[in-house]
């Protein structure tokens, strides 16, 4: 691996490189020990279900907070103020849906994937095939967005490393974590990332506040008149706490908010994290830990985002690498080269933890839902076949991710892919998950129509949106959630009511007892 990174680099830039390598070495050691410990499907897919509440809370946070939310939001606040901060709010509030509705029933009723809950009382094969397709869609699209982002970022952070080398490096590492270390290694990579991210943003926050002698009032006063150069080259002075400086269409914001609020609880890579804890109570505790960490992080975006706006200014940010570089450049300005290198390494860790989570969720769903349950009718015909298929899938998914990211290239705007992932999770996964837990009459036809309608409407509306069709867009909103979520719910209801199939009442009662009490739920493995 090392030789890939060492190219013509200016001598002064080696600090960031060394910090990257230290992080990579630490995660590879973890992977080595995870690989030695892990044997059996439960160990590979669910880390033996022995992760504790706070560990899983950190891992959920590490799985969730992507480079887009660290560097992207900081940059948006630095360039245009308040509107960027609105993104931060949605990311935390979304966890209420996870806490109230899905985390505990999911842990009690399922085994490795989201589809386990659906298949509990519905006809397993059609439901799993549909759920696996939507899981793979969400995970792979989200992953390609992250890989392209990673390539662009690493290229900016370490001069001399090309886009292609960065994409291949990130892709290889995530495949190594998942193929050899499984869920245990992925979990620890995510935990380390969460700790690094919180440490880095905590330091950055303190350094920003130090510039204002730790006087919060003074900090906010500095934001009331930020001057920058307007589109026509004229000087403009704006109050950065004013809403509406970039977002002009409120419907876009409502749609995005709905995608976050309903989509987070349907993101497969977040959902499978709840299978790694011993029971539903620990799953609940881990959501609470995650909410504390995620909330603190997004409140800190106030300080380093607005701090970048007032201490450097939008013009400086635009001239020094653009929005994504606002946080690292702020670190350089306040803490010197070493701190810049540290924040860069944090950004790198951030990307790796998220793509590893996405890879394992895609491979788990393919192996468990599609291979074992759809093709082999739920029977493992050979011992260990499921884990073997998952490892091969992780390798294939990783290779595909690298290939597509390189073909798309660094200049493609991939933000819509993240929007698509959240929209599919919100419109296809969440409605059927909610109905299968709470609605007695819900049946197989409803689940299948709900999943396919949610998936298809999200993809079609994105293809018709301004992100793809530019000024000729048929559909006016950037995120389809406002329309596709109701379509997902309605399709699930209509599909249910049109079908003659009456679901077994006993099975629903059984699911209710199991989801609420944990009776019969998968146990943690012994040491």
């Amino acid at each position, binding site marked *: 691996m090392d030789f890939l990174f060492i190219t013509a680099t200016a001598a002064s830039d080696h600090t960031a490189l060394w910090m990257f390598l230290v992080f990579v070495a630490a995660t590879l050691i973890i992977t080595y020990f995870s690989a030695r410990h892990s044997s059996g499907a439960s160990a590979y897919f669910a880390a033996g279900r022995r992760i504790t509440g706070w560990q899983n809370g950190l891992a959920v946070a590490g799985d969730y907070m992507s480079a887009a939310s660290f560097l992207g939001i900081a940059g948006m606040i630095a360039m245009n103020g*308040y509107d960027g901060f609105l993104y931060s709010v949605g990311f935390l509030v979304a*966890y209420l849906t996870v*806490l109230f509705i899905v985390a505990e029933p999911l842990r009690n009723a399922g085994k490795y994937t989201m589809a386990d809950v659906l298949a509990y009382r519905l006809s397993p094969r059609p439901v799993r095939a549909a759920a696996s397709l939507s899981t793979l869609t969400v995970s792979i699209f989200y992953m390609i967005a992250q890989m392209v982002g990673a390539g662009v970022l690493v290229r900016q952070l370490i001069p001399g490393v090309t886009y292609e080398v960065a994409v291949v490096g990130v892709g290889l590492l995530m495949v190594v974590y998942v193929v050899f270390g499984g869920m245990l290694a992925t979990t620890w990579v995510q935990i380390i990332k969460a700790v690094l991210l919180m440490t880095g943003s905590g330091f950055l926050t303190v350094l920003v506040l130090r510039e204002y002698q730790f006087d919060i009032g003074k900090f906010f006063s500095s934001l009331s008149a930020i001057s920058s150069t307007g589109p026509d080259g004229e000087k403009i002075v704006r109050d950065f*706490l*004013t809403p509406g400086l970039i977002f002009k269409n409120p419907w876009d914001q409502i749609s995005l908010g709905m995608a976050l609020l309903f989509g987070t609880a349907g993101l497969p890579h977040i959902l499978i994290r709840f299978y790694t804890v011993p029971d539903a109570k620990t799953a609940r505790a881990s959501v609470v830990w995650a909410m*504390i960490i995620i*909330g603190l992080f997004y409140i800190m975006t106030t300080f380093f985002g607005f701090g970048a706006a007032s201490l450097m200014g939008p013009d400086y940010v635009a001239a020094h690498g653009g929005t994504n570089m606002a946080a690292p450049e702020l670190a350089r300005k306040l803490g010197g080269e070493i701190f810049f290198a540290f924040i860069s390494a944090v950004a790198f860790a951030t990307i790796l933890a998220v793509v590893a989570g996405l890879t394992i969720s895609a491979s788990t769903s393919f192996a468990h839902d599609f291979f074992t349950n759809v093709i082999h009718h739920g029977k493992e015909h050979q011992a260990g076949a499921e884990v073997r298929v998952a490892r091969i899938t992780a390798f294939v998914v990783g290779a595909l991710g690298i290939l597509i990211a390189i073909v798309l290239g660094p200049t493609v705007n991939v933000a819509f892919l993240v929007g698509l992932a959240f929209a599919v999770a919100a419109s296809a996964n969440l409605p059927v998950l909610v109905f299968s837990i709470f609605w007695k009459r819900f049946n197989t036809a409803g689940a299948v129509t709900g999943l396919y309608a949610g998936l298809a409407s999200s993809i079609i509306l994105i293809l018709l949106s301004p992100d793809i069709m530019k000024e000729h867009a048929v559909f006016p909103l950037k995120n389809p959630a406002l329309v596709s979520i109701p379509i997902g719910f309605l399709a699930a209801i209509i599909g249910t009511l049109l079908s003659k199939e009456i679901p077994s009442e006993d099975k629903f009662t059984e699911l209710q007892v199991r989801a609420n009490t*944990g009776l019969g739920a998968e146990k943690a493995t012994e040491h």
Partner: protein
Amino acid sequence: MQQKVWGDVNIAYLFALSQFFMAWILALIYVIAATGWDRSERSLLAKFGYSSEH
């Protein structure tokens, strides 16, 4: 929304910030309620002769 309430801090910022505390408070209320459900779950399981290991 641009009304300043504390120094230069306006209603818009406080509103956004309040969402964080709202989320935390709702989570706290849920956890308290769920602890009560845990108790009834334990007694219910015990009544039907299942031991709950928690």
